[in-house]
């Protein structure tokens, strides 16, 4: 059987405040319909790995889109733009939620969409995924090792004019999307205690969730080009991700093209 002829590339969408921003989209072949997934990149930016992960989602039958949350700091190469965003202190939660909503709205309005929409994020994007599960309209969410869901009580008071970042854990009562959490037990942010405390709050509020904790894995263990990559744990966790989406977004359409159609 052939692999699906995924199409991918950069498009322009409307994000927060109607701003035009870049997004990387990957789509299975054919007219669908496909469930959609918005992928939220981490603090180092809209990098090659986030594009690979977006294509992986499409390979498995989802129309996927990764909005470039630092678009407004461009133009330029994604790494240089990320450096500018870093120097400016990153981006605020309200803007990120607006961009994520814009990406989801874009997918939903495409003729190939089933209308079902998931979200996934890694690291800082995991934290933002948690927020999106609380504040936006998603059918399933996957938080991969999002740090800061429970803010550090010892963190310095933000300087006047600093970007507003919410306390995600305090938004939990608003959570509508079923949440899958993927964590490494050697991670220090979130550490196992923070993960346990987050789970306790989800449980207390009766939310639909499923947490998976992996021994022998730390932070960012999906990244194949980093020493922290853990093949066994990552492979299992990706299986959990696709099972979660199939359960809550519906089964993706078969994406393998019949030989006669090629």
């Amino acid at each position, binding site marked *: 059987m052939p692999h699906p002829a995924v199409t991918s590339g950069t498009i322009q969408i409307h994000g927060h405040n109607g701003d035009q921003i870049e997004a990387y989209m990957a789509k299975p072949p054919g007219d669908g319909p496909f469930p959609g997934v918005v992928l939220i990149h981490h603090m180092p930016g809209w990098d090659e790995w986030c594009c690979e992960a977006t294509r992986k989602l499409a390979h498995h039958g989802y129309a996927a889109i990764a909005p470039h949350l630092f678009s407004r700091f461009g133009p330029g190469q994604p790494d240089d733009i990320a450096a500018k965003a870093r*120097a400016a*202190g990153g981006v605020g939660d309200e803007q990120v939620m607006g961009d994520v909503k814009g990406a989801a709205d874009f997918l939903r309005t495409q003729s190939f969409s089933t209308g079902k929409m998931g979200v996934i994020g890694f690291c800082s994007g995991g934290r933002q995924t948690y927020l999106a599960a609380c504040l936006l309209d998603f059918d399933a969410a996957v938080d991969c090792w999002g740090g800061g869901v429970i803010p550090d009580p010892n963190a310095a008071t933000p300087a006047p004019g600093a970007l507003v970042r919410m306390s995600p854990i305090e938004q939990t009562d608003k959570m509508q999307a079923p949440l899958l959490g993927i964590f490494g037990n050697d991670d220090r942010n979130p550490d196992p205690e923070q993960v346990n405390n987050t789970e306790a709050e989800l449980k207390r509020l009766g939310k639909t969730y499923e947490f998976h904790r992996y021994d022998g894995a730390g932070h960012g263990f999906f990244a194949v080009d980093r*020493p*922290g990559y853990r093949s066994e744990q990552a492979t299992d966790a990706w299986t959990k991700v696709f099972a979660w989406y199939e359960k809550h977004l519906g089964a993706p359409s078969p994406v393998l093209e019949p030989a006669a159609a090629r």
Partner: protein
Amino acid sequence: MCTYLTEKTEIFGSAKGPTGWFNVDTATIYFDHPYHAPLDHSLNIDFVNEKDGSPVRVAVELSAESARDLVARILSVLESGEAAHLQIGSVGAVVEEGGHAIPNNAETADLATSATS
């Protein structure tokens, strides 16, 4: 983990980027996931000209160990280099291959000792 912890400091000097030399006035320093280095976390420095708003930067991503070693060596070179130039400025010196200043008389040697102690 991704952090928003970033230090910025004013600097004065030049850096060479893809389009040639340019003035730099700011260094942004952070310890987080690298963009390119095959590390989980790295000490990252961006040298930029913020005043001009130039998009050009010179960036490095270093392992924590090598960054600490670099800091120590920078301080060491600064100390010995400034001491050497102090000699040149005050009583003159010859410089051997490799850039190390050699005092040209005993009096200068005493000065060098006092400057680096």
